[in-house]
């Protein structure tokens, strides 16, 4: 059996749903963050797979940019986590329901 791009897409979908589930079900902000990373990776995978299918390198370039943005996002996000944690001593997002310090 040959592994076609469709297989990767299916795998990407599964990983994406798992990530989304983590995002929705977990309260720990760090885990939610990691779920987001997982979703991004799932999508990246589909980019690369489709890029290979159509013989285009631009898919990989897109992945590159996603990674850069994700890295930046993680940096800032974690910094926010730290400062929130310093104040609240909790990493649960459900404790952050009001726009007030």
């Amino acid at each position, binding site marked *: 059996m040959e592994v076609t791009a469709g297989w990767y897409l299916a795998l990407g979908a599964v990983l994406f*749903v798992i990530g989304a589930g983590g995002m929705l079900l*977990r309260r720990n902000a760090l885990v939610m963050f990691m779920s987001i990373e997982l979703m991004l990776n799932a999508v990246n995978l589909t980019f690369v797979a489709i890029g290979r299918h*159509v013989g285009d390198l631009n898919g990989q370039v897109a992945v590159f940019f996603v990674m*850069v943005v994700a890295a*930046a996002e993680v940096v800032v996000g974690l910094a926010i986590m730290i400062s929130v944690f310093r104040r609240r001593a909790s990493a649960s997002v459900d404790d952050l329901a009001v726009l007030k310090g």
Partner: protein
Amino acid sequence: MVELVLFIVFGLIAVAGALSMVLHPNPVYGALGLMATMLSIAVFYVVNSGHFIAAVQVVVYAGAVMTLFLFVIMLIGVDRAENLEERLPMQRQLAIGLGVAFLVLIGLIGGNAWITAPASASEPNGSVEAIADLIFTDWLLPFEVTTLLLIIASVGAVALAQFSPRRRGGAEE
């Protein structure tokens, strides 16, 4: 044939890692599971002739980002387990229902018209040179913008992490 084996093995690892990340109450284990997933995805990149991307995936994601996560987890001392009991009404049911619906829909699409574009005969060349060629010609402006983004992100991170959370003039909690 090799590819099929690789897909099955690393696909399983990836899914298992992802599930452990989502389901394990302790974030440290979750982080390790996610790292496994990332590495598997790097393998898939290689298979799909994204050599440079695979290297970046390993270095940046599995290396830098996940390490950062672990640092933070250690730093804020959440090595204890999280209470997984759900308090938001309908949250769990909705989340699972939507997830299933998503998969079903993807399945529907997959069964119907998955990829309509004709398969290309040639594999893309995912070498550093080829990627660099694209980035520094067609994608030069977005690329430069990412540099800005990174600078702003690092400055922002330093600023956020550095300043004391105490309010000016206000009473401390």
